């Protein structure tokens, strides 16, 4: 696939924005400014950036908690995201939710429930709606390798396959599910083999190569859009931080991290852009500055934002509130 200069630069921009935003959040966490914990996609940013950038505006996505790139690309602003981490009223959820539990249908983003793989059937259902209505839209969902062990993974893939739904399922195979290495999670070498059980097409892609992820996603989306059914895409990558920022991940062999460090998706894309003359020095500088500015602005915004009032906890339970249901 021929990818134009602008797209390549955008991919690069979002990779960087994702990395730096999460890095910043990590520092803020260490400073005690973040409420709750922090989980990042460090080292695996190409997955969410690649599959999200390949979506059309009307498509929808159900990211999981290591898909910061998806939120950013869909249009959830860093301001709202950092404010969410701070528990501020201006956060995506007005303080009701924290960290990456981000959803906003105005941007086609289905909120992530912690329960891994729960959103796989949900994404299939959105795709089902598109199919029923004869719309040319598709749905893309992502989960971790560990998440594929859950029953909802199975029920979703089976349903999608039987009904030939326009949905593409991604797996961020970052080698670990919390402390559990691949071999303790499943007895197949490739997560992609799980798709065999459903007669579903599958792909394995280098999850540190954003161009590859973007390309394979586009292809699968077009297939789904054409009515030719779902695809399961395994993105092989590596979780470079602990499970969360309070996990030192001593269970990960240092050599493995060393090896994967060399494959860093951002450096790799940078190298590609430069070697192929896809970015000028000035453009590169501009991208770096944009990333920095956007994050600084977002942090400042979040800092200055007010907390919600305690009693706001009572609001917004129902979309159709019923007069008599309020607790005294």
């Amino acid at each position: 696939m021929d990818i134009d200069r602008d797209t390549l630069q955008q991919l690069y921009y979002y990779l960087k924005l994702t990395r730096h935003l999460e890095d910043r959040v990590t520092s803020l966490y260490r400073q005690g400014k973040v409420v709750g914990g922090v989980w990042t996609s460090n080292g695996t940013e190409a997955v969410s950036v690649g599959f999200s950038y390949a979506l059309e505006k009307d498509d929808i996505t159900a990211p999981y908690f290591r898909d910061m790139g998806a939120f950013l690309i869909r249009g959830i602003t860093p301001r709202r995201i950092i404010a969410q981490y701070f528990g501020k009223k201006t956060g995506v959820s007005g303080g009701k939710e924290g960290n990456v539990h981000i959803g906003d249908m105005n941007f086609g983003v289905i909120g992530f429930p912690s329960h891994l793989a729960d959103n796989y059937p949900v994404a299939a259902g959105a795709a089902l709606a598109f199919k029923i209505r004869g719309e040319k839209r598709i749905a893309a969902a992502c989960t971790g390798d560990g998440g594929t062990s859950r029953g909802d993974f199975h029920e979703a893939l089976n349903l999608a396959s039987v009904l030939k739904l326009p949905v593409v399922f991604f797996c961020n195979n970052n080698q670990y599910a919390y402390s559990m290495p691949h071999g303790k999670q499943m007895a197949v070498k490739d997560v992609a083999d799980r798709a065999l059980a459903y007669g579903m097409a599958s792909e394995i892609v280098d999850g540190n190569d954003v161009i590859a992820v973007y390309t394979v996603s586009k292809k699968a989306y077009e297939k789904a859009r054409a009515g030719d059914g779902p695809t399961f895409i395994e993105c092989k990558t590596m979780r470079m931080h602990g499970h969360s920022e309070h996990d030192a991940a001593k269970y990960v062999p240092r050599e493995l991290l060393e090896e994967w460090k060399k494959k860093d998706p951002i450096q790799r894309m940078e190298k590609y852009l430069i070697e192929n003359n896809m970015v000028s020095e000035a453009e590169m500088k501009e991208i770096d500055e944009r990333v920095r500015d956007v994050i600084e602005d977002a942090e400042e915004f979040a800092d200055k934002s007010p907390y919600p009032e305690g009693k706001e906890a009572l609001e917004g339970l129902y979309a159709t509130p019923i007069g008599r249901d309020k607790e005294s």
Partner: protein
Amino acid sequence: MKEITYVEAIQQALWEEMERDDSVFILGEDIGAYGGAFKVTEGMQEKFGEMRVLDTPLSESGFTGAAIGASLVGMRPVVEMQFADFISCAFDQIVNVAAKNFYRWKGRTPIVIRAPYGGNIHGGAFHSQCPEGWFFHTPGLKLVAPAFPSDAKGLLKAAIRDDDPVIYFEHKYLYRRIKEEVPEDDYVVPIGKARVVKEGSDISVITYGAMVHTALDASEKLEEGGISLEVVDLRTLLPLDKETVFDSVKKTSKVIVLYEATRTGGVGAEIAALISQEVFEYLDGPVQRISAPDTPVPFSPPMEEYYLPQVEDVVEAAEKLVAY
């Protein structure tokens, strides 16, 4: 107005809503050509097509999740659980995804789950359960449980039009056993409103589902002895219509809470708790509860009969309570 059965009322509501609104569709096991285990959707696939009356693989969590997803992008799915008992397999999707979507991130989730529930059909532990209590303790859901054909129709319509996830508990025992005149036009019963189905002066019986009929039968029997029951049919379980319940208690000062589910932690516990907190000063006697005991639903007829609350149980409790 025509007399129709409870199941016909459900059918009418489904057909009318499907005709009225293209975004309504039905999904579940065997609901297509077969028309569903209880024949509720019979003929609908022929009329509305395979996609709007959708047979799914045997996977309650998967198709409930799919309904949630479809609802997030503007559809109004109606899920059929083959038996309410199997809703346990979709529990996580219902309580953690559907129920919390709106509060957490303004995700509008207008799904309806039809749950054919209840005993008295010799179905044993897995085809007789009253699972409403599990969901009653889950903020974000709405629960309705009609006792009459008119409410069966009107509440299903309201549920489909509501923007929140609604579990619609339809009592299997009532399907073909009761008839009533039901408005043929667009008849909607608002969610969140109980109804006094029989006025009375001595004791309020607060109940729902099949037990409404048990209460009414008991009321007739007691009338002979001069005891007058007021029967309040909750119709909606969540959110509860406390006002109607309290008004009745204020009037009679004595209460029996009657429910078919197991006793501990059931819907009836909440009603009793609410009454004893909020209208305590009106009470002239302890709040009585009549329910199934705390065991799975037994299979053998003598045990099932013993297990389920009977007219006689209400009569006895009422006689004692009046004398209190």
